[in-house]
C-alpha cells in the first residue's frame, strides 16, 4: 500500500493493536511502552537485599485447602489472554469477585517486581499467576508457590492432557496447572518468500539475508537453531545451547537477521519488511486476518513448545478460590471459550469437539489443535540450573546487544 497516508496507516496500525493476541501485544506494547513500564521493577530493585535460598522443595507435596466461602480472587495474567466473559460467569456461579489484572508483560520483569516479597517469604498480593515454564520452574524450586489441593480441582485431574505431566520441575503438577500453550516456529509472508517455507534452514538461507527476525529469548531462538543442527532442544545441555547461540552470532555478523525482537516482529511481517520471523503460533492466527499472505509453519525439524502455568504464590490469601477458579477453567466448555478467543493451544481435553460445533474451520486449525504428527515435533524448553540459565542468557544478550 505505497499510497496510503501515514495517518490512516497509523490509525489502522492502532486498530490492529486492539485485536492482537497477547504475545503480539506484549512485544509491541513492550517496545512501545518501554519508557512507561517497569517503574515498580526499578523501585523493587533498588532495595537490592540478598536472597535467602536453599530450601529444597518436596515435589510430592500436596496442598490442603478446605472449602471456604469464596470472596475475592486476585489473578495476574498476560494481556489479552482470556475471554473476559468467562470471568463474569465465574463470579456469578461462585458469588466471588475475581480481580483479573493483566500485569505480566515479561517473565523476568514480573519476577523483578515481586522478587523482594518472594525472597522475604511474604505474600505478593496475588492468589494466582500464570508464568512461562522456565520462570514457573524457578518459582517452584525456590519455594515461592503453594502446593495445590487437587481435591478442589477434579476437572484439572480429569481433563489435563496427559502430555503435560512429567515436566522435570513439577512432574505430578502438584504446584502448577497449564493455562495455555503455544508453539514457536516460523511465521512468513508468502508474497515475500515466493512460496511455502518448510525448513528451519530457511532462517539461515542467504537468499533472505537481512529479511529474517529472531527472538531475543534464547529458549526459543537457540532451541530452534539446535534443531537445524540435528539436536533435540529439550535435552539440550548448556554447551549445546551455547553452540546454537554461536551459530546465531555468526549469521548475525553476516547481516542475516534484521532484528532480534520481543514479539514486535508482527509489524515488520505484515508490512513485508521481512520475509519471515521466528514467531508464536497464536499471533499468526490473528495476523492472518490483517494480511492473508501470512502463514505459520511447524518446521519439519520441529518447533518449540512453551506453556504458561497457573500457580498459587506463597502465602496467598485465597488459595481455595484460586483452586476453584482453576477447576472452572478446566471445564471443557469454558476452556473452549478461552481457546477460541486467544488462539493458543489449550491443555484441556475435549475443547476441539466443542469448538467444532460452533466453528468447524477453527477446530481444524493445526495452530490451535496440532495433530499427533505435529505434537511429536513440539519440543518443550530444556530445564537448566540457575547458573546455566544465567550463562545462556548472558551469551544471548551479547549477540543481541543487550
Amino acid at each position, binding site marked *: 500500500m505505497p499510497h496510503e497516508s501515514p495517518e490512516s496507516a497509523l490509525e489502522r496500525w492502532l486498530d490492529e493493536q486492539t485485536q492482537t493476541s497477547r504475545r503480539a501485544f506484549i512485544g509491541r506494547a513492550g517496545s512501545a511502552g518501554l519508557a512507561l513500564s517497569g517503574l515498580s521493577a526499578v523501585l523493587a530493585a533498588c532495595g537490592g537485599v540478598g536472597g535467602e535460598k536453599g530450601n529444597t522443595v518436596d515435589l510430592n507435596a500436596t496442598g490442603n485447602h478446605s472449602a471456604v466461602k469464596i470472596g475475592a480472587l486476585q489473578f495476574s495474567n498476560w494481556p489479552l489472554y482470556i475471554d473476559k466473559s468467562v470471568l463474569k460467569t465465574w463470579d456469578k456461579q461462585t458469588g466471588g469477585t475475581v480481580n483479573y489484572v493483566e500485569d505480566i508483560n515479561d517473565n523476568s520483569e514480573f519476577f523483578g517486581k515481586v*522478587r523482594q516479597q518472594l525472597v522475604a517469604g511474604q505474600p505478593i498480593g496475588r492468589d494466582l499467576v500464570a508464568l512461562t515454564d522456565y520462570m514457573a520452574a524457578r518459582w517452584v524450586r525456590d519455594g515461592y508457590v503453594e502446593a495445590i489441593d487437587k481435591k478442589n480441582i477434579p476437572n484439572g485431574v480429569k481433563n489435563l492432557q496427559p502430555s503435560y505431566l512429567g515436566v522435570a520441575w513439577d512432574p505430578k503438577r502438584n504446584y502448577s496447572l497449564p493455562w495455555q500453550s503455544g508453539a514457536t516456529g516460523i511465521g512468513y509472508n508468502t508474497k515475500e518468500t515466493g512460496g511455502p517455507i518448510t525448513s528451519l534452514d530457511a532462517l539461515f538461507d542467504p537468499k533472505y539475508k537481512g529479511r529474517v527476525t529472531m527472538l531475543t529469548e534464547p529458549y526459543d531462538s537457540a532451541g530452534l537453531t539446535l534443531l537445524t543442527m540435528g539436536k533435540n532442544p529439550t535435552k539440550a545441555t548448556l554447551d549445546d545451547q551455547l553452540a546454537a547461540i554461536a551459530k546465531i552470532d555468526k549469521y548475525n555478523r553476516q547481516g542475516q537477521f534484521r532484528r532480534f525482537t520481543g514479539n514486535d516482529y508482527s509489524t515488520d511481517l505484515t508490512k513485508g519488511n521481512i520475509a519471515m520471523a521466528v514467531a508464536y503460533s497464536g499471533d499468526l492466527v490473528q495476523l492472518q486476518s490483517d494480511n492473508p499472505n501470512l502463514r505459520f509453519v511447524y518446521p519439519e525439524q520441529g518447533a518449540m513448545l512453551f506453556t504458561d502455568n497457573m500457580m498459587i504464590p506463597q502465602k496467598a490469601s485465597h488459595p481455595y478460590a484460586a483452586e476453584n477458579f482453576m477447576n472452572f477453567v478446566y471445564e471443557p466448555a469454558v476452556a473452549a471459550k478461552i481457546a477460541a478467543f486467544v488462539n493458543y493451544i489449550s491443555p484441556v481435553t475435549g475443547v476441539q469437539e466443542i469448538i467444532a460445533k460452533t466453528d468447524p474451520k477453527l477446530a481444524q486449525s493445526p495452530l490451535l489443535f496440532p495433530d499427533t504428527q505435529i505434537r511429536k515435533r513440539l519440543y518443550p524448553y530444556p530445564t537448566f540450573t540457575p547458573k546455566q540459565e544465567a550463562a545462556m542468557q548472558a551469551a544471548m*544478550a551479547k549477540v543481541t546487544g*543487550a
Partner: protein
Amino acid sequence: MLNLSARRRRKLFPYLILGPGLLWLIVFFAIPLANQAYVSLQTGDPESGYTFTWAFNTYPDAISTYSDQFLRSFAYAGVATVICFVIGFPLAYFIAFKAGRWRNVMLLLVVVPFFVSYVLRTVSWQLILNDNGWVVARLRDIGVLAPDGRLLATNVAVIAGIAYNFLPFMTLPLYVSLEKIDRRLIEAATDLYASRATAFRRVTLPLALPGIFAGSLLTFIPAVGDFINAALLGTPNQYMIGNVIQSRFLNILDYPTAAALSFVLMAVILVGILAYARVLGTRSLTEAAV
C-alpha cells in the same frame, strides 16, 4: 531580642524558599542516586539476589563490554545535535526576524509534536519509513537507496528519529536568544560598513551563543540516553547505552551492571558538559550577557 530574631529570620528566608526544591532534590535525586551507587557495587544473580561486596570491577567490566554502545550513543547524539542545529538555527532565525505576524503560529507549530506521545510519534516513523512505503520507493527510484536498500533498521533511521524528536529542544532556546537581540546593534554594525554576513558573524551569532549552548545541551544530553528511537527504528546493531541499561534492568534483572552503566554515562556527560562550558560557555556567555 525581637530585632535579632527578625534578622535571623531574614537570613534564613532564602533557605526557606529553597526548602521545597531542596527536599525534592534529596528525596527524588540524592537518595536514589546513593541507592544506585550502593546497588552498583553488589554482586549476585537475579534468582538468589544481590549482596553488597564493594564490587568495583563491575565498572571496568561494564565499560569494556558495552564500549560499542557507549561510543554509538555519543556519535548518534552528536550527529543528531548537529542536524538539529543546522535545521533549527535557520528556523529559529526566521521565526525571530522574519515571521512577522505568523511568529506565534510558527512557534506553536514547533511545539505541536509534543501534543502526541513520544513513542507514538516514533512508531509512526516506522510506518513512514517502511520498506514497501512511499519514501523508500522514491529514494530507490532516484538512486539514493540501492534497489534492495532500506531505511528502517539502519543508523540513518535512528539518527533521523533522534533529530526529529529533539528538534524543538534546539529550536526554542535558539529562538529565545535570537528574539531578544537588540536590532539596533545589527543596524549599528551595518551602519559601520559591516556587510550583512559580517554583521551576522560578528554580532548576531555571538549574541545567540547562550541559545546555542542551551539548545545543544538540551538536545545532546537526553539524546545520549535515549533508547526509544534505537528500539523502534533500529536493530541491536543500533542499540545505544540506554537500550542496554533498560534491558539489563527490566529484562535481565542485572541491577549492578545497569546501575554502573548509568553512573558511567552520567560521569561522562558531566565531564563533557564541563569541558564544553569551559570552551564555549562561561566566557562567551558572560560576554554575551554584558
